[in-house]
């Protein structure tokens, strides 16, 4: 039952995030989707990923998108439609992708999988694994994030420097 409620909120948020005209409303709907996904992670027993989702997506990415929207706000309203001319084709492509995915899921072995009991995973186990088995990917992702942040600042700063 709780799964159905969370799923409905998540999907409704996703639809609203991409159909509303006001960009700030879109981000608020996106936050609803991210929170719903965090709820689904918690339901699946992945507490750490659920809280990481709230921290990173609801906390950081949504705020970043709001900043970008406010920094790029045009005074003139968007001329004409908010969608591209060939939008019917795009929607048909997306519907076809969903149809193929749904068909593949329905006919896969997942649909006859027995429901297993919840795996008991503590944050301590995740931390141990991150510091032993997955230490190299952890370092690489740290390097990637540093490079991405330096790159993002460099890209966004370039114009300012040239003006001096």
């Amino acid at each position, binding site marked *: 039952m709780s799964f159905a409620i969370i799923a409905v909120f*998540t*999907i409704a948020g*996703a639809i609203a*995030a*991409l159909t509303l005209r006001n960009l700030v409303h*879109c981000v608020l709907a*996106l936050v609803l*989707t991210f929170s719903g*996904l965090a709820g*689904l*992670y918690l339901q*699946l*027993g*992945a507490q750490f*990923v659920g809280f*990481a989702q709230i921290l*990173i*997506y609801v906390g*950081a*990415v949504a705020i*970043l*998108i709001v900043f*970008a929207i406010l920094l*790029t706000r*045009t005074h003139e309203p*968007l001329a004409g*439609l*908010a*969608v*591209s001319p060939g*939008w019917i084709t*795009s*929607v048909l492509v*997306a*519907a076809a*992708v*969903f149809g193929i*995915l749904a068909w593949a*899921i329905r006919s896969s072995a997942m*649909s006859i*999988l027995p*429901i297993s009991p*919840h*795996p008991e*995973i503590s944050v301590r*186990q*995740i931390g141990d*694994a991150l510091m032993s088995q997955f230490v190299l*990917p952890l370092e690489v*992702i740290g390097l*990637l*994030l540093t*490079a*991405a*942040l330096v*790159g993002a600042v460099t*890209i*966004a700063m*370039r*114009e300012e420097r040239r003006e001096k």
Partner: protein
Amino acid sequence: MTAPVNYLLVSAVIFAIGLAGALVRRNAILVLIGIELMLNAANLNFIAFWRYSPNPEALTGVMFALFSIGVAAAEAAVGLALIITVYRHFHTTDLDRIDSMRG
């Protein structure tokens, strides 16, 4: 108790919505939001497969989802920085009006 198929179907719906949004909308920021939705749908799949895998103690699904969240955060930061730079140059985020390479 929810069957694993339901999580996969929700994930497929979110992926399709994100794809439609990324293809349909003309605003660059909304295209980025569509891409974020697709990444999140993939993460939901990772967690669902981990939860119903024969040995979840291996933690591989959780780790993959965590690293994927990290990569998505880096992608969002760089993507938004690019959008802000493009906006400074063209004074619009309308993708149909950003049509020249040298401005």
